[in-house]
């Protein structure tokens, strides 16, 4: 499509699927005049795994391990959306202690995803050492997750009606030991980002997304909140125990790359505050409801027929599962609405008139996880 419109002194460059520093394998065809981008288009599909079809042949319990792997960085939000769908269909109730544990684990997952996203963005701008610093902090958070769930990335921790295991005995001390370091590190990142003049010259005023364009394309998550729209599913349609927790929705008004990074930094602080509140407020109690047939051990479950849509706040935006069940032990159809596809569609309008060096900077600031786009 782009090839037909090549002008006199223009050339087409494929920033292709194999690239050392693209956030995931997708192809960006850019039409360049010198160093300026005139037009671009995005092609995806290199990492399609067929997850929606696989889920039709697995029972609901086996599906939890598969849904983990849609976006490996935000595994627990994917599981929460899937498990929430099944619980809505079957009318399963989750006790309070399990809900608090779910909130803790999901906020930890959000924390480590933002740390990696911010560090990866710094390495796109050329600042490789910052990537190493954020990875160092992420190690502590991953070992916290490891002590609860048993694995660092693919957790498969949630079950229908509760969670797999309770929090281990030394967890609160670990949190008290790790969180001050992470807070100090986040403060130093903010300091570094806001005072480095080269970094500001690369990010302030670059890739400005307005609220209208974002709402038209269906963008959600930190890119939308950076344009000034305070839309957060945890506040607008609360699930689990988010109604009882006190946290604020972080917004900025500029809409450029600097604002998106700032929103992620603030969200990390809010996540840590939420986790500390949960640890204080958590009641004692059972992990599963008393008379439920679906407990930790339930291989064959027949879910009553119906359709439901459940959405959660992924670190990247709104993640939703639309599940159709026909009464058997396997779902009839699962449709996954990922948060990253709309953010990738903002790239063609945003990339008109910028230099080549900004392509990767803007694409990286959207924090795309291409595995989630292609499923």
């Amino acid at each position, binding site marked *: 499509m782009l090839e037909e419109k090549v002008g006199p002194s223009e050339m087409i460059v494929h920033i292709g699927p194999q690239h050392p520093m693209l956030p995931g394998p997708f192809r960006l065809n850019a039409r360049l005049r010198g160093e300026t981008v005139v037009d671009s288009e995005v092609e995806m599909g290199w990492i399609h795994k067929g997850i929606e079809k696989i889920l039709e042949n*697995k029972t609901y*319990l*086996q599906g939890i391990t598969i849904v983990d792997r849609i976006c490996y960085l935000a595994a627990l939000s994917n599981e929460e959306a899937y498990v929430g769908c099944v619980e809505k269909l079957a009318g399963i109730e989750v006790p309070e202690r399990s809900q608090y544990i779910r909130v803790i684990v999901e906020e930890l997952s959000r924390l480590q995803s933002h740390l990696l996203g911010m560090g990866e963005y710094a390495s796109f701008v050329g600042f490789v050492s910052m990537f190493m610093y954020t990875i160092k902090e992420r190690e502590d958070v991953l070992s916290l997750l490891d002590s609860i769930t048993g694995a660092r990335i693919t957790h498969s921790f949630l079950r229908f009606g509760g969670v797999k295991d309770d929090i281990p005995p030394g967890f609160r001390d670990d949190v008290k030991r790790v969180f001050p370091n992470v807070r100090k590190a986040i403060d130093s990142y903010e300091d570094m980002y806001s005072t480095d003049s080269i970094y500001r010259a690369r990010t302030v005023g670059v890739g400005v997304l307005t609220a209208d364009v974002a709402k038209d394309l269906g963008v959600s998550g930190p890119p939308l909140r950076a344009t000034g729209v305070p839309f957060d599913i945890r506040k607008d349609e609360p699930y689990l125990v988010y109604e009882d927790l006190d946290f604020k929705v972080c917004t900025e008004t500029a809409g450029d790359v600097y604002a998106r990074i700032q929103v992620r930094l603030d969200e990390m602080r809010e996540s840590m505050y939420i986790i500390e509140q949960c640890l204080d407020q958590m009641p004692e109690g059972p992990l599963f409801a008393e008379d439920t047939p679906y407990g930790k051990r339930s291989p064959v479950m027949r879910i009553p027929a119906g359709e439901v849509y459940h959405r959660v706040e992924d670190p990247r935006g709104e993640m939703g599962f639309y599940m159709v069940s026909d009464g058997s032990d396997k779902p009839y159809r699962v449709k996954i609405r990922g948060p990253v596809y709309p953010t990738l569609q903002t790239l063609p309008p945003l990339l008109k008139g910028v230099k080549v060096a900004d392509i990767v900077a803007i694409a990286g600031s959207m924090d795309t996880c291409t595995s989630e786009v292609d499923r």
Partner: protein
Amino acid sequence: MVIKNLMKAVKNIYFGPPVTRMCPEVPTKLADRFRGLQKLDKSKCIGCGICANTCPNNAIKIVKARVSPGSDKKRWFPSIDIGHCLFCGLCIDQCPKDALSNTKVYLTGIIRWQHEDLLFTPDMLAREVDINAEEEAGEEVSRWTPQ
């Protein structure tokens, strides 16, 4: 400014010790719940097949194996294909008699040179056959010793 970042980097040279470890001489610190290779207790297993039904990848097959070393009786036991195993832990959760349990073997106990050796028989899962993992403080762990 730029100078501040430079000073921070230079300060890290002396005051920041390495946080990485020299793998594989230095072992990783694993949590207690870390999901590694499964361990089979042959006296508890009844051969019901729930673990094989639950496995998301169909990695477990139920085969006939001897009950204990030096016995002629055979019963049905699970054999796990480690090449396909996700280490998700569903089989350990679903076993009604708690015959499968968790260990922290993740490195030397399960690395093999040939693809056929990745099919772990019930004797290997019950640790009657040596699988090249070491014991430390009474529990099984993987450590690489330099040759």
